[in-house]
Every structure is written in structure tokens, then in C-alpha cells.
């Protein structure tokens, strides 16, 4: 249902919620194409090799485009993955929290505690230190 026509919740299936999102996805995908298309019609097209060279403040590019590997970058991403999944578990937990007893809190504390051990480990090992 659309912006101004939204019905009161309930009575419709969950799937009908996503009609709007579906239309939105289509429009959102079309938007950049339309914008770039208009620009394509309007703009000048005069390429030359100097223009098309890699921008490096006027200097010639030397060697391959390659960034030295650092384990640091990867470990940050790794810690992120772990915490992202933790959030995935906690969202349903938070939704059901008021129907649950105190033990639900205890379980979540245990869950988080185990993960915090991981964070502390990574921290102590210096994995979070930028080198």
C-alpha cells in the first residue's frame, strides 16, 4: 500500500507489505539510470589518452595498482563479522524480551559474555592495534 493509503496493520498478509518495497526497488534502480542517461545526452564527449590516464596529481603512474596486505584490516573485518552475527541473534531476542523471564537476560549475558571474551582476546593480542 502506498504512502498515503496505508491501511491499519493487520488483516493483510505479510507479503502485501512488500509490494511497496518491490515498486520502490524498481524505481530506485531506474533513478540512477535516468539521471546518467540525461547526462549522457547532454555532456560533451571528447576523450583523449591524457585525460583517461590514472589520476595521480599529474605524475605518471608507476607499477601495478596494489595495496600492501595487512592482517590488521582483515582482523577488523573478522571482529565485525562476529559482532554482526551476534546482533542477528539478539534482534529476535529483544523482540521477545518482555515475554521472557529473567533467565532470558542471563542467557543473553552469557551469550554476550562469551563474545566479549573474544573481543578482549583480540584486544590483548594487539589485533586491534593499528600498525
Amino acid at each position, binding site marked *: 500500500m502506498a504512502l498515503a493509503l496505508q491501511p491499519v496493520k493487520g488483516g493483510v498478509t505479510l507479503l502485501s507489505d512488500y509490494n511497496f518495497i518491490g515498486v520502490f526497488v524498481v524505481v530506485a534502480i531506474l533513478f540512477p539510470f535516468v539521471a546518467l542517461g540525461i547526462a549522457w545526452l547532454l555532456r560533451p564527449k571528447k576523450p583523449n589518452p591524457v585525460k583517461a590516464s590514472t589520476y595521480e596529481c599529474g605524475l605518471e603512474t608507476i607499477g601495478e595498482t596494489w595495496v600492501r*596486505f595487512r*592482517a590488521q584490516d*582483515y582482523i577488523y573485518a*573478522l571482529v565485525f563479522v562476529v559482532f554482526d*552475527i551476534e546482533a*542477528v541473534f539478539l534482534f529476535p531476542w529483544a523482540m521477545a524480551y518482555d515475554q521472557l523471564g529473567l533467565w532470558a537476560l542471563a542467557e543473553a549475558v552469557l551469550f554476550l559474555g562469551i563474545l566479549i571474551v573474544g573481543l578482549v582476546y583480540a584486544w590483548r593480542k594487539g589485533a586491534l592495534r593499528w600498525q
Partner: protein
Amino acid sequence: MQVPLSWYLIVAAALFCIGLYGVLSRRNAIAILMGVELMLNAVNVNLLAFWRYGEVARGTLAGQVFAIIVITVAAAEAAVGLALVIAVYRARRTVDVEEVELMKL
């Protein structure tokens, strides 16, 4: 609810087989991992399809919980697998699984 269950199962089977092909035919460890991720995805489609078409009537949630656990395992697998790829790459300057053969008899 008009799409029959078997359609989902066929799509999942196709995803699984494509992933399997990727795992079998690639040399690059990262590409193999991507194939594994595809296979795990296929499993999830199956789990959720079965949940929707059978389990939801019984009011239980095993399908959804299984799917979440599978996603967790997939993430853990990707994390450790890619860490291994990085370690191998650092030591041997390659991620080609055929060149990593020191453990072979």
C-alpha cells in the same frame, strides 16, 4: 501461496549443483569458498521452504532456527577459511589449492 513447494526445491537443487561445480572445478581457494557459500545458501532455501510449507502449520520454528545456525556456521567457516587463505598466501605467495601440497604424501 500459489508457488508450489517443488519449485523452491528445484531452485535450491540447482543452486547446490552450481556451487558444487564451482567447488570441484576451481583452483583458487577463494573461489572454492564462494562455491561452498552457494551450497550453504541452497540448504537454507530448502530449510525455509520446508518451514513455510509444513512446519508453520504446527507452529514450531526449527526451520528458521536451523537457517540462522547455518548462516552462523557459514560466517565462521568463511572467517577461518579466509584466514587460512591469507596465511597460505603470506607463506607461499599463492592461493592455488593445487600448489599447496606440502601435506601430500
